[in-house]
């Protein structure tokens, strides 16, 4: 079959099972856009290319498939960069296709030329500049394979304009991808697994640290079976939310900088840490020299470069975490750690006493009230997408997940502006599922132009805007560590209700708890997209995320929310 490069792009996207592409057209990618209609693949027109990458990312996390973003050369391509870096840090499989100036002009500083393969070298798992149309089909095939296999990540394909218009004989690639240097790992080394099992069988105070890898390898059932058999409490990373049901008696919840105190105490007091599909990010460990000093450590990860990178471990197992858990399960003995769990429960009781939700009503609306009200209204079953900042941490703390849904959030890169476009991708991946985008007023304004995309595509996303008129997390640092000098963090905001209405989106505002519950209920009765603005406490103890491990402090040196003295 004779096909142009442009046609091959869509042929191959169909071949890879792609049904939707997020993108923005422009000169150098126009030939490819013009060929789309013959192939019936849906295109979501975003208003800024950054949103295309984030939407592809949200789509991938919500569906478990590869998300696809498309942009033109030059500024179109550079606008993808933040989205690509976000996907790289969180190991999300996306494929980005960019137009490029014709091969004859590459290197000449032509109009809208930029070296996007050079720019994205350190933030992609791999990338391609395809200079011969004969190589195109196979490059796309490879790109999808690399994006989704092993430790997933973003792959970029740069397509010069003349490659899109050139013709070739198109033959769909057959069989396995041939990459001599690329060998995704499977099961772990049996000897290492055996040594891990010995440590597990000898442990008295074990804790599991479950990360994003559990969700990506589909190890939720294996993790649960392992935790129950060995009676081991499970702490989650931010991206690990969903890996283990949070209402399970063995669930501890989120660890790290804003993890609950009893979780971090358990880690610091453990005699064995079992790190499954996580990477000991600094937000998880706090000061490395003082991290979990009493414990032996077992680390299972799919990426060899993560083993012994931040935390030296006793047993490092390179492998797919689901397969390693299945190897471990028959080697571990049924155990009961009653005393250890009771000790943790004691710490947990102290956390409950400090919980801001357990305080008497004082008329003020706090962000945790809003998150909990959304959780109650949705019975914890919504797909939740967040932006980055205080609301993100409160959502992680108060939107408990009992389902193996991903909690869609920018963890590694901490990309403000991620939430709304990622929610677009998630809603398109799961059209029948209730999707909530929980955003802060700062991050929302970095990509709020995507309200137009939400409206145009009639996506029933429910946007909860947690408005405290500050860049709240930065303000919190200023309050705690810079003597309340609020340098460049106060936001003089627009009227968000009228703003949403200008985009054709129904909107409500709440300033107290009753109103918050009412508008959440009302929004859930409404079919189209909605925006709910919650005006919450701006500062002070009620506007601060607790607990907090200050940057550079050890995990047990948390700042705790004071206990309210009952009068």
């Amino acid at each position: 079959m004779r096909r142009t490069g442009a046609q091959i792009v869509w042929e191959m996207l169909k071949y890879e099972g792609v049904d939707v592409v997020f993108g923005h057209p422009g000169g150098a990618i126009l030939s490819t856009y013009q060929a789309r209609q013959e192939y019936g693949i849906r295109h979501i027109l975003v208003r800024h290319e950054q949103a295309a990458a984030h939407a592809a990312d949200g789509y991938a996390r919500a569906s478990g498939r590869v998300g696809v973003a498309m942009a033109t050369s030059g500024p179109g391509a550079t606008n993808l960069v933040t989205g690509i870096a976000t996907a790289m840090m969180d190991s999300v499989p996306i494929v980005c296709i960019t137009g490029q100036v014709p091969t004859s002009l590459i290197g000449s500083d032509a109009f809208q030329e930029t070296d996007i393969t050079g720019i994205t070298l350190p933030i992609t798992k791999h990338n391609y500049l395809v200079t011969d149309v004969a190589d195109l089909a196979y490059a796309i095939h490879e790109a999808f394979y690399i994006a989704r296999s092993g430790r997933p990540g973003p792959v970029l394909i740069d397509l010069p304009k003349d490659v899109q218009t050139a013709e070739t004989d198109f033959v769909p690639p057959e069989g396995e991808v041939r990459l001599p240097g690329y060998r995704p790992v499977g099961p772990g080394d049996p000897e290492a697994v055996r040594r891990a099992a010995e440590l597990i069988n000898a442990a008295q105070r074990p804790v599991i640290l479950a990360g994003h890898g559990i969700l990506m390898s589909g190890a939720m059932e294996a993790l649960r079976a392992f935790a129950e058999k060995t009676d081991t409490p499970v702490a989650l990373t931010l991206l690990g939310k969903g890996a283990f049901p949070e209402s399970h008696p063995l669930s501890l919840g989120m660890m790290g900088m804003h993890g609950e105190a009893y979780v971090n105490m358990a880690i610091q007091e453990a005699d064995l840490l079992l790190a499954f599909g996580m990477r000991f990010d600094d937000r998880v460990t706090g000061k490395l020299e003082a991290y979990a000093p009493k414990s032996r450590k077992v680390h299972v990860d799919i990426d060899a470069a993560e083993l012994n990178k931040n935390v030296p471990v006793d047993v490092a197992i390179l492998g797919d975490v689901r397969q390693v858990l299945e190897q471990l399960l028959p080697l571990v003995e049924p155990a009961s750690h009653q005393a250890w769990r009771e000790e943790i429960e004691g710490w947990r009781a102290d956390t409950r006493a400090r919980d801001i939700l357990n305080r008497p009503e004082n008329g003020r609306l706090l962000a945790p009230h809003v998150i909990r009200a959304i959780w109650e209204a949705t019975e914890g079953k919504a797909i939740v997408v967040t932006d980055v900042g205080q609301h993100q941490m409160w959502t992680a703390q108060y939107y408990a997940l009992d389902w193996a849904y991903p909690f869609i959030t920018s963890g590694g890169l901490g990309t403000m502006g991620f939430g709304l476009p990622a929610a677009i991708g998630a809603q398109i991946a799961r059209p029948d599922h209730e999707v909530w985008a929980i955003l802060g007023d700062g991050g929302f304004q970095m990509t709020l132009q995507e309200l137009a995309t939400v409206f145009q595509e009639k996506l029933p996303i429910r946007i909860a805007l947690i408005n405290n008129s500050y860049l709240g997390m930065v303000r919190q640092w200023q309050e705690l560590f810079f003597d309340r000098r609020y340098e460049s963090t106060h936001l003089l905001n627009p009227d968000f209700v009228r703003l949403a209405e200008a985009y054709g989106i129904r909107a409500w505002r709440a300033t107290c708890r009753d109103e918050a519950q009412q508008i959440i209920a009302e929004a859930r009765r409404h079919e189209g997209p909605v925006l709910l603005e919650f005006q919450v406490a701006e500062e002070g103890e009620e506007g601060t995320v607790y607990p907090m491990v200050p940057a550079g402090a050890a995990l047990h040196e948390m700042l705790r929310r004071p206990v309210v003295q009952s009068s």
Partner: protein
Amino acid sequence: MERTLIALVEDKPGVLNRVASLFRRRAFNIESLTVGHTEQPGISRMTIVVDSNRTDAQKVAQNLYKLVNVIHVEDVTERPAVMRDLALIKVRANGQTRAEVLQIVETFRARVVDVALDTLMIEVTGTEEKVNGLVEVLRPFGIVEMVRTGRVAMLRGTA
């Protein structure tokens, strides 16, 4: 201490850039890096020397494996291997000093590859210590120009 890694990589445009970019991004300190063709078409070979006091060679290897185009990485530091560096040294040698320089060249089993009125170009192959030694004894004569390839390495025997 120095550690020597051999990496086999796909001979494709941009691969050297990927490797260099990785070293820069991870703040790896590289003492030397050489690249060349191998007996297999489509495969290039890199010899990478790192100062293990500053950079963990195992981390370098693990990160190299993250690059799709890297086929195989081996740390040959503790294996029986031949390691060589090649240098071209242009040294001042006039009528009075020429004989002395030639004698040094002979002692080091080096070769003179170009002769001019007041300089000699010397080619020397060997371990870096040997090349360093030659450089030191030639320095008093006046080194005009020098180029070194950096270390290349190959395991001994059939393995």
